[in-house]
């Protein structure tokens, strides 16, 4: 591995973590679209900044582009507040306008600016190691590395300082406001960090893929854990892992680095979406299926409780009486036997004592939602887990 390759991977990893942190909060606040808007509408800020400074890593450029990002949020909220259009419409109105302004600015000045739309949209991290900072002849490393490193440092410090405030303002803005934690201020703080990060990251991975870096890791870990701190840590780890994997795949395929990483992230999400325990698609599908059988079992037990006649309780005539397919009938019987709810004698099925209790409790749960006694049942049956 060459030192340039190492540097590229370091830049990518820092970008990945820097994006994942605000990304987690954007996802929890259901504001994924806003990151899309910011990533596009910073373009005019970047272009104007570039006209002035001729340097993509200049602090002035970062400042101007960040302001454009925050301005986007302000405009979206302003338009939304008029009550004439909904939030998604407001976002759709603002960012294409700002973005196209940026495109026009680039096109009008293509002659004398070394900035093209492709680079801005897709980034080119492979060139990052060539743009270096030197101090009195000493090589300090790629500018990108310094820039994104500083942004990450600031955003981690803010996260440590204001973790509690971010959490309460995200979970319960009303309580946060009543306690004096100004959720509006925290909101704009988060928007500013998201904008700075987007500006810092676009050079390496392009404005469009920033969205993938912000949203996908957060969406993945949201399916994996119920703990905010773990969400942040896992999102950071996962995005670093995807970045390095993506980098090497791109290397061997000779493909766009940022594009490959985004694809890897997409695949990872797809796998987690399918297989995540509890919140994954398969687990949800199994849960729904299981609930169906459990409801059927309850119906069956109710039937048993209501009928003393043996002909209604004959194992071989169940289908006629309750009108079930043989497959469902078999599953229901199996579940009920497994849980010692029923006993069978000469093909006649009766409720056990446990079965009678269970039926009564379940009925009262369903009718008046009084669930204090159900804790024991929740362990064994999906039906009562809400």
């Amino acid at each position, binding site marked *: 591995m060459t030192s340039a390759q190492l540097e590229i991977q370091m830049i990518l990893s820092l970008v990945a973590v820097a994006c994942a942190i605000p990304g987690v909060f954007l996802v*929890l606040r259901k504001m994924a679209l806003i990151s899309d808007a910011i990533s596009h509408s910073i373009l005019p800020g970047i272009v104007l900044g570039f006209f002035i400074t001729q340097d993509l890593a200049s602090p002035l450029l970062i400042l101007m582009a960040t302001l454009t990002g925050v301005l986007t949020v302000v405009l979206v909220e302003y338009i939304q*507040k*008029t*009550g004439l259009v909904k939030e998604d419409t407001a976002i759709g109105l603002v960012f294409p306008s700002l973005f196209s302004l940026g495109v026009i600015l680039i096109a009008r000045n293509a002659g004398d600016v070394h900035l093209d739309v492709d680079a801005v949209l897709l980034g080119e991290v492979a060139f990052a190691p060539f743009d270096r900072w030197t101090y009195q002849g000493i090589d300090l490393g790629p500018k990108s590395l310094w820039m994104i490193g500083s942004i990450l440092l600031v955003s981690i410090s803010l996260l440590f*300082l*204001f*973790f*509690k*405030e971010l*959490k*309460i303002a*995200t*979970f*319960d803005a*009303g*309580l946060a*406001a*009543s*306690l*004096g*934690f100004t959720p509006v201020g925290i909101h704009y703080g988060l928007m500013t960090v998201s904008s700075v990060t987007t500006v810092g990251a676009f050079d390496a991975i392009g404005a469009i893929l920033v969205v993938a870096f912000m949203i996908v890791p957060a969406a993945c870990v*949201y399916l994996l*854990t*119920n*703990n*905010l701190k*773990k*969400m942040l840590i896992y999102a950071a780890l996962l995005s670093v892992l995807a970045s390095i994997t993506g980098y090497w795949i791109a290397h061997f395929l000779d493909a766009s680095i940022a594009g490959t990483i985004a694809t890897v992230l997409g695949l990872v999400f797809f796998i987690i979406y399918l297989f995540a325990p509890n919140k994954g698609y398969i687990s949800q599908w199994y849960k729904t299926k299981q609930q169906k059988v459990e409801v059927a079992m309850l119906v069956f037990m109710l039937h048993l409780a209501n009928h003393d006649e043996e002909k209604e309780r004959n194992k071989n005539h169940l289908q006629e009486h309750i009108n079930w397919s043989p497959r469902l009938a078999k599953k229901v019987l199996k579940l009920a036997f497994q849980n010692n709810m029923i006993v069978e004698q000469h093909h006649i099925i009766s409720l056990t004592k446990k079965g009678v209790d269970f039926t009564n409790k379940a009925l009262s749960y369903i009718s*008046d*939602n*009084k*669930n*204090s006694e159900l804790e024991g049942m929740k362990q064994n049956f999906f039906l009562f*887990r*809400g």
Partner: protein
Amino acid sequence: MEAKIAIAIDDLTVAYNYKPVLWDIDLQIPEGVLMAIVGPNGAGKSTLLKSILDIIKPLAGSVTVYGKPYKKQRDLVAYVPQKGSVDWDFPTTALDVVMMGTYGALGWIKRPGSAQKKQALEALEKVGMLSFQNRQISQLSGGQQQRIFLARALVQNAAIYFMDEPFQGVDATTEKAIIQILKELRKAGKTVIVVHHDLQTVPEYFDWVTFLNVKKIATGPVADIFNDDNLTKTYGINYKASIAEGTL
């Protein structure tokens, strides 16, 4: 003997996008009452709480808490928002939510430690939720979620409690448990203000009531003012039929 005034509201008008939802409210809430705020959906009950708590800026008027602006009295006040106003899929546990009640006293940046955890555990015990402390909040029933919210307010250890529909989506056992705790708070000299939508239980649960429908219709002791006249003024002429149909 004249009771001290806990909350004084003067000429309060509140609007969303310049559409007033509260008009010229004057209201004095005496210390030590257990008060219901009743009114139809959209009457501005939640908005009234939010403007007292400085969550919404009013168009006009003023609110004082024990004679001073709310901003200076935050530590005297606890708030339970409407259950539906938060995302119960948020990645956190029952204990963690209750701990949020300590954030106000902590102030900015300082983090909760073992003292705060102890307070939170005590509150969880009081609402009968100790064994659920590590449960993810989406895995709690509606009644349990409401108990968690109440525990969070108890942790705030305030003089005045505001609760927005604490009985919404709650089972009968929890409702009894909550009202029991509210009555204990009143006995301890606290002022408790509850947005309430079940008119039938008002006389049983509360000793003070405010009728609200954009304007303040009436306020005072339940025994004196909870009558057909005020109910009709607040809910319209057919309020009894509406109660029977369950549409209120």
